[in-house]
């Protein structure tokens, strides 16, 4: 993504006299950043219309228009925030397929809350993967956090039940639930997650305050399908976009927001536990075009 703006200026200078080639190259750039073909068409269509109607020939204005379009899709004016509840604990259910960086994203979230003085409990509801508990335990030990976990292959619903009970009696501010990562096509996993949601609801008389899907920014068009499947089963409230320190910047989230209306709430960009931020659509649009 970073190369885009240099390229834009370059493309503009190169193709000034041949507008079709300029727009074609712009299309190529967006698609190469995993923005879907249809979203690309939508963004460029609007910008193009305006440019022709107003006979604009200033690349800076075109850049501004592009940025505006991207921000409009993300419809965020300010930084994203997480919903919390007036009666603690606030519960965040984190889902996603394997390998997207769920567990480290959870550790980073937990640290963020801790740093602002909150009491955080983590529920290890991934009872499926080998060494899943060891992995999250490594983080909670490091951060000095409490972790609720059971035996491997035990019922994740029971882990969540215990966690909520503990959070209420011991007055925790936040509970983050780590869940098993499997392919979204796994029927059992979806049922397991629905059950977790029900357990939260039964014990707090409300759904989790946030149900967030973790999306790896390296993922292409399949990310939309992932979001869609989890959304159909659980009703997602947002996305955590991970691994943005690589060379791909996750243009697919534009399509997810555009088509499914699921906003991006957080973003992680490095190996350190501090490398997590609330999503800033302006910044995102800028990095996409700069």
């Amino acid at each position, binding site marked *: 993504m970073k190369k885009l703006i240099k390229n834009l200026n370059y493309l503009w200078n190169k193709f000034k006299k041949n507008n079709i080639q300029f727009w074609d190259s712009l299309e190529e750039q967006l698609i190469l950043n995993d923005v879907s073909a249809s979203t690309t068409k939508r963004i460029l269509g609007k910008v193009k219309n305006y440019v022709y109607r107003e006979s604009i020939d200033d690349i800076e204005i075109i850049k501004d228009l592009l940025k505006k379009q991207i921000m409009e899709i993300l419809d965020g004016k300010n930084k994203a925030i997480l919903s919390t509840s007036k009666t603690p604990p606030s519960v965040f259910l984190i889902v996603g397929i394997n390998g997207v960086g769920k567990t480290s994203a959870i550790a980073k979230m937990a640290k963020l809350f801790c740093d602002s003085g909150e009491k955080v409990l983590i529920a290890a509801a991934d009872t499926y993967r080998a060494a899943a508990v060891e992995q999250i335990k490594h983080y909670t030990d490091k951060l000095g956090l409490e972790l609720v976990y059971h035996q491997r292959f035990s019922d994740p619903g029971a882990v969540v039940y215990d966690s909520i009970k503990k959070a209420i009696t011991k007055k925790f501010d936040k509970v983050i639930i780590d869940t098993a990562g499997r392919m979204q096509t796994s029927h059992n996993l979806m049922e397991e997650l629905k059950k977790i949601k029900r357990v939260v609801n039964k014990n707090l008389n409300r759904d989790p305050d946030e149900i967030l899907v973790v999306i790896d920014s390296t993922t292409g068009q*399949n990310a939309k399908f992932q979001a869609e499947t989890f959304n159909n089963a659980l009703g997602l409230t947002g996305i955590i976009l991970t691994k943005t*320190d690589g060379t791909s910047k996750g243009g697919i989230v534009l399509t997810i927001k555009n088509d499914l209306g699921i906003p991006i709430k957080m973003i992680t960009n490095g190996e350190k536990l501090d490398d997590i931020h609330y999503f800033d659509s302006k910044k995102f649009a800028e990095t996409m075009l700069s």
Partner: protein
Amino acid sequence: MFEFLTSKFEDLFYRIRNKGKLSKDDLDSSLKEIKLALLEADVNFKVVKEFLENVKQKAIGRNILKSITPFQQIVKIVNEELINMLGVTGSSKISFAPKTATIIMMVGLQGSGKTTAVVKLANLIKNEYKKKVSIIASDIYRPAAVPQLRDMAKKIDVDVFFEENSDPVSISCNGVETFRKSGSDVIIIDTAGRLHIDKIMMDELVNTRKRVKPHQIFLVLDAMTGQDAVNIASQFNLKIEYDGIILTKLDSDARGGAVLSTYYATKKPVRFISTGEKIEDFGIFYPDRMASRILGMGDILTLVEKAEKVIDKRKAEEIEEKIYRSELNFEDFISQLKQVKKIGSIEKVFSMMPIMNKNKIFRNLNLDDSMLDKIEAIINSMTLEERRKPNIIDGSRKRRIASGSGTSTGEVNRLLKQFAKTKQMMKQFKNFGNKPGFPFGKLN
């Protein structure tokens, strides 16, 4: 796998298959459709462009617009170009070092599925090539990476080497030495996931390679990777020249465009694909078979190979003989059913069959394994006599079978009817003079 692309190609081909003549507009709109389908499947933009250009050139060169069989021509051209994109054929065998232990190193991004792929590859080499395989765990960074590997390796009974308080290079060297002494034929090194732009981590890989001198290096790549797959594959290749790619998470809905892009970018072929959660869901990659599958023409070769591995040949022949004599009964039916299930899920089996528009059919049929389970339950609730002579099943027997199998009499009826129809069909085949055969009846 590739259902997305397959259904797109099937839709397109279905529309043009009966055209006696292809106009220039038809060709252009077909190419446009292919372009969108490939992009939606995450094939790299530049690769798509070149692919379309090649198809177009060939179409013009072969005078497709004047051809009286334009459909066959275009399928042929697209098939050829797909195979070109997927890489050369004939590179699919694993080569082993003649005298010493073969060392294989696996590298890739975080979360690409390296550890699982390491264990699956170990399992494949152990079972298919009858070699003694060992694994070195050199991921000292990710919490619980080593316990995860140990846990999985234990299931396939393969030794794992690891050293506490050491570094990846030393662990790899010491592991190789240890396993050489203990007589391993193949040693697989699992490395930590890393970003291709992380200089320090990439240097560590280069150092490991220098010291250990692996015979083969494989890049493990997530099939769901987007446009950046080309970049990742190129960067890894630049820094640590690898021999091939292992594509993971190629489950049913992964569009797998990466597989169509990386060979183009790096000229390094995809060697293995991982297609599911189970350890056996892993195999050698054949570009020509994959091309045929993507185009909706099925993959009979793989299906037959899989069937050969799990199906009892003698039993299959017995059943075939019975079909021939029209004596097929429910007992044979259930044993056939069990054999089919051994090959894989019904969806997997179905996806390998050469049936046009099967994706559509499949969606409408709503065929899944629970249906097979139901059929099995119904047959299991029949008495031996009922299984052998289905025509004695009357109303009260139907009710008993339904309640015994937790189904309804309607479902029992449906099965009986289907079975009668199948038998009827078999008879007709026989009357044609051809020896019939269930899809998996005859395997020689």
